[in-house]
């Protein structure tokens, strides 16, 4: 019996530890991904509604900067056009940003145009201006300063150019903007700040996009991934719980004689059921607590010692990150205890219904 109980205990410890470890691994990776998303995407993008830009509304930037929780406000000029070089042209989403001193191409644009840092490209606006010979496209010749994926949250190949050049290309006055990118002290407060921004600039005249809304498909995928991993590893705990049920049943069968003696001494069926339920629960609680401790300690040690390295150029991470959260521990612990309780119910009923005379005859 001791060996059987030990096997059930170890099974539960391993199941719970595996679930805690898997969730810590997921939390570690997802926390890293979310942190990068929050770093690279504007926390809130404020754009005009019902008009193309904030031209003539220079006070909008100051209004947004005064909102609680806003750390910085960056005006941006966005539009569409073409980038040409060596007789090739590619359509492009264009973002003008203060501080840029040339154009930063997306890697895909750079490859298509064979344009690399140091070379000149011509940006052609989708707008035109009238000349004595008719409408002519508005163009700007800019040096390529970098090739990188733009962190604007638009999820399409995008080129970033100086704000002044963008204003010229899209016909905006100086200090005009098609939107404002806000960075916040707390990225999780984006929805609240977005609501306050709409209220400050006019609910019907303003649209906002939070970094969570801009990355909704990815965030949904992360949630689904978490759910799928939880459901898979959760089965390990279910199997461990069934093992516990089997152990409790063996306990109830092998201690049938003791249950019969307790009945002779005056214990009723309810008390016998409680005794065997308590035995199963104690085994389940001990296994759960040890499993939580083993899983959490292992995850914390693996994270602190960076024991599992990753190729940094592939994952943007040098090691496998683990993050143990109280919420995960609480969820796993609660589920495991509940399952231990359910798994102990049947053996407890078996013990309560013991045939005393038969058990005594069997010795």
């Amino acid at each position, binding site marked *: 019996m001791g060996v059987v109980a030990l096997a059930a205990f170890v099974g539960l410890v391993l199941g719970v530890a595996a679930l805690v470890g898997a969730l810590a691994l997921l939390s570690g990776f997802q926390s890293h991904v979310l942190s990068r998303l929050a770093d690279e995407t504007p926390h809130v993008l404020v754009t005009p509604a019902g008009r193309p830009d904030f031209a003539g509304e220079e006070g909008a930037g100051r209004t947004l900067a005064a909102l609680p929780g806003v750390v910085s406000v960056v005006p941006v000029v966005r539009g569409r056009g073409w980038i040409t070089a060596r007789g090739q042209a590619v359509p492009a989403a264009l973002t003008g940003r203060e501080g840029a001193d040339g154009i930063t191409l997306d890697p895909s644009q750079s490859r298509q145009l064979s344009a690399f840092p140091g070379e000149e490209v011509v940006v052609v606006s989708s707008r035109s201006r009238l000349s004595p010979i008719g409408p002519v496209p508005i163009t700007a010749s800019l040096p390529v300063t970098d090739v990188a994926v733009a962190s604007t949250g638009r999820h399409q190949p995008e080129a970033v150019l100086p704000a002044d050049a963008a204003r010229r290309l899209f016909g905006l006055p100086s200090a005009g903007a098609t939107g404002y990118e806000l960075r916040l002290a707390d990225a999780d407060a984006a929805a609240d700040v977005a609501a306050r921004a709409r209220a400050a600039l006019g609910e019907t005249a303003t649209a906002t996009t939070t970094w969570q809304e801009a990355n909704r498909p990815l965030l949904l995928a992360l949630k689904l991934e978490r759910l799928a991993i939880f459901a898979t590893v959760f089965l390990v705990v279910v199997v461990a719980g069934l093992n516990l049920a089997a152990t409790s049943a063996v306990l109830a069968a092998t201690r049938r004689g003791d249950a019969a003696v307790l009945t002779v001494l005056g214990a009723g069926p309810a008390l016998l059921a409680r005794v065997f339920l308590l035995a199963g629960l104690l085994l389940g609680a001990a296994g759960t607590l040890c499993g939580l401790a083993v899983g959490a300690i292992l995850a914390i040690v693996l994270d602190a010692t960076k024991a599992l390295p990753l190729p940094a150029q592939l994952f943007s991470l040098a090691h496998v990150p683990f993050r143990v959260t109280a919420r995960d521990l609480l969820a796993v612990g609660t589920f495991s205890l509940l399952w231990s309780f359910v798994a102990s119910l049947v053996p407890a009923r078996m013990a309560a219904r013991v045939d005393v005379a038969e058990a005594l*005859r069997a*010795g």
Partner: protein
Amino acid sequence: MPAEPILRAESLAKGFGEAEARVELFSGLSLELGAGEATAIVGPSGCGKSTLLHLLAGLDRPDAGRVLVDGRDWTALAPEPRARWRGEAVGFVFQLHHLLPELTAEENVALPLLLAGSPEGAARAAARELLSRVGLSRQSGAFPRVLSGGERQRVAIARAVVRSPRLLLCDEPTGSLDAAHAADVLELLLGAARERAGALLLVTHDPGVASRCGSVRTLTPDGLSAA
């Protein structure tokens, strides 16, 4: 008006199996035991002596008849009140001690009181007192595995009488003991019954043990007859 007997069994019948495989152990069995009476039941192996004790203790149900202890019919009780009644009214001693191996002698003796809801301190004190009276005060902290056969049976007797039951049922209580230990154990049982003005019913193969009881009855398929 005559005193109500402690035990009254009326027209008990019991058998096992179904249809052609049915074996009738006994039928029409009636028995009365008054305060201070000690009766031995003898009979060949397999005649149903232990089954009769189980019926009298409410551990098994008769096919017919009823059992009253102190005028109360346990066959009419639901499992929970029947268990409470049994703990209070009946003490049971087995051929094998059936002590719980994880508990000390003192804890085994205190167990019926604890099951009845007595405070632990009072239950342990009562257990120590009884162990002292059966000559085992030095072994109160010992586990059953380190006790001799006679010592275990004396602990089992202390456990059976710790709640001062009106009816003491013993199933071959000396069957696994040598003659010297058997005499000790039998004296303890008879003394316990006398002291508490209860009734003692024991089943045995041993004519010597049976002869120490006030009356001896033989179990037959038609009930009990004088030996």
